[in-house]
């Protein structure tokens, strides 16, 4: 009874110092949570990928195309259930800062391979009917205030010119791990326009998306596909969708590692701040701890008081930091939706926040507790007066 009261009262004895320490912990946990969420967002595509989907691309690089004729050959390979294809378009909407992913794909089969993408049947039917039709994610539509039937013009970067699309459908994700900021249109529209203009990439695709019968045979099927096109003009590299996504992340791995390091540095800094607060506190109260020892309270009680106080201060800041992470992440997500289409605070991030707060509180209390427990009572009492 008294012990808890004492811990809480002690924690708020120096209101300004405690307020500043709690504020520091709050900001640190908030920053830690946001950085961990950035890392999660980086891996969102990997998390959302399916084990039964493979991606086949040009073995040299993704920027080189593959012939459309590979489609039938891939379909006949043992273990393949379905094949579709797409091409990165890389168009710009009005200004470069309005970046969003946009690509051409075979409309029927491609979207069938993504059950996590939900399109109302009437939108899908309208999309399939209109060669210049496009489907956009819910968040993207909200971002630019588009409506069904709007004409959206993208300025081509890989494929020069202004390209007009009619918004025929809006999709939403099955859950919050699905990117709702992408823009799809029909590959035929791209191909026919390129053909009319007599440009390269006619009859070429950027990648093939393959659904296999069983995730367990992914390695075998990948090998069979690549073997089929060995020594051809466009050799292929087939990998799971997860590995394909990871290969993108690998390009920016240094940034991810830097963010991870910064997140841990933040925790280390706040650990030093809380340890300093606790050291000052314990030094000021060494006389009181001596009185407790005089009255018969042992090292466990004294340590409990110090660790308890450290926990109250740190956990108050930790809880505030966690609570603020959600609105902060929402603002972050809205501001940077072009770069982080999926920006959700994961449960693991909250657990890491709690663990970090607990670790900070525990480590910050070690030295003051050791000092208070080991000081001679007579020396402690001499500090009073």
């Amino acid at each position, binding site marked *: *009874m008294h012990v808890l009261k004492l811990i809480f009262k002690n924690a708020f004895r120096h209101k300004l110092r405690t307020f500043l320490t709690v504020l520091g912990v709050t900001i640190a946990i908030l920053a830690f949570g946001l950085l961990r969420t950035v890392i999660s967002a980086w891996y969102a595509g990997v998390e959302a990928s399916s084990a039964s989907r493979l991606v086949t691309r040009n073995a040299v690089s993704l920027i080189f195309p593959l012939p459309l004729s590979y489609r039938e050959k891939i379909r006949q390979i043992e273990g393949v259930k379905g094949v579709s294809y797409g091409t990165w378009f890389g168009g710009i909407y009005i200004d470069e800062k309005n970046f969003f992913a946009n690509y051409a794909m075979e409309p029927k089969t491609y979207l069938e391979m993504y059950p996590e993408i939900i399109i109302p049947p009437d939108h899908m039917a309208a999309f399939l009917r209109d060669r210049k039709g496009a489907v956009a994610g819910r968040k993207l539509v909200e971002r630019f205030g588009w409506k069904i039937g709007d004409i959206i013009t993208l300025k081509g970067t890989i494929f020069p010119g202004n390209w007009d699309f009619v918004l025929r459908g809006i999709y939403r994700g099955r859950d919050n791990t699905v990117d709702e900021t992408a823009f799809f249109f029909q590959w035929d529209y791209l191909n026919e326009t390129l053909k009319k203009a007599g440009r390269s990439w006619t009859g070429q695709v950027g990648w093939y998306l393959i659904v296999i019968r069983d995730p367990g045979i992914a390695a075998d099927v990948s090998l069979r596909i690549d073997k089929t096109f060995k020594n051809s003009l466009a050799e292929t590299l087939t990998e799971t969708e997860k590995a394909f996504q990871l290969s993108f992340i690998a390009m920016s791995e240094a940034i991810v590692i830097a963010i991870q390091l910064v997140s841990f540095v933040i925790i280390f800094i706040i650990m030093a701040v809380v340890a300093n607060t606790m050291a000052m506190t314990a030094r000021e109260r060494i006389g009181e701890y001596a009185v407790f020892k005089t009255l*018969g309270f042992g090292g466990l009680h004294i340590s409990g008081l110090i660790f308890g106080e450290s926990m109250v201060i740190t956990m108050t800041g930790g809880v505030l930091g966690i609570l603020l992470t959600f609105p902060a992440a929402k603002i972050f997500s809205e501001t940077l939706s072009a770069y982080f289409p999926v920006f959700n605070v994961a449960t693991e991030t909250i657990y890491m926040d709690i663990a970090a707060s607990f670790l900070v509180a525990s480590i910050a209390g070690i030295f003051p507790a050791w000092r208070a427990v080991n000081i001679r009572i*007579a020396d402690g009492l001499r500090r009073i007066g």
Partner: protein
Amino acid sequence: MSSRPLIVRIRNLFKSYRRGSQMLPVLNDISLDIEEAEFMALMGPSGSGKTTLLNLIAGIDRADSGTITVGGLDITTLSETELAGWRANHVGFIFQFYNLIPVLTAFENVELPLLLSGLSKKERISHVETALRMVNLSDRMDHYPGQLSGGQQQRVAIARAVVTDPTILVADEPTGDLDRVSAEDILELMERLVHELGKTVIMVTHDPRAANKAHVISHLDKGVLNARPQADF
């Protein structure tokens, strides 16, 4: 001298402190007997070793050699943990600066030593109320130390010292921080503890008026003890 049973028996006690590379002897072959329900004053100049002797009797410091037997138990043989438990049950402390916990009320301060006693909450409340009634502070039990005068704080400290019904009470300059009237009150209260409750009180003081309340005055000088019983004891 009366022939009451001995409560404290000290034999051949030595204590020294290290200062840098030097050992400074503080207590030199001290032997002392204190009877039950005796009020003893320890006097002497600053640095004579009186607080050190008090701390050794109370089990909050360790002697270099010698024995200290309190209530039949040689406390020099106890471990730190055993000594902490022994202090909780057998020693009541009264300090010069009261040493109350500022964030606890008078009631909670007095209840503090009872938290180690295993008593039920009801029993603790009863003990605390009795102790505070005895020091005439029943109407101040919800006050924080900061809301009490020095004399009242010292009375709370005395209530805290007696609430566990200890074998001995040790007081280090209990009137040193008080005005004359409050000091008189505290000394009267300590006399009452001896006469009415039969407590043994060992008090370190510089104040001859305070020492005159004691049955026995022991003088420490340069680590050597000379005891002198008061005429009316």
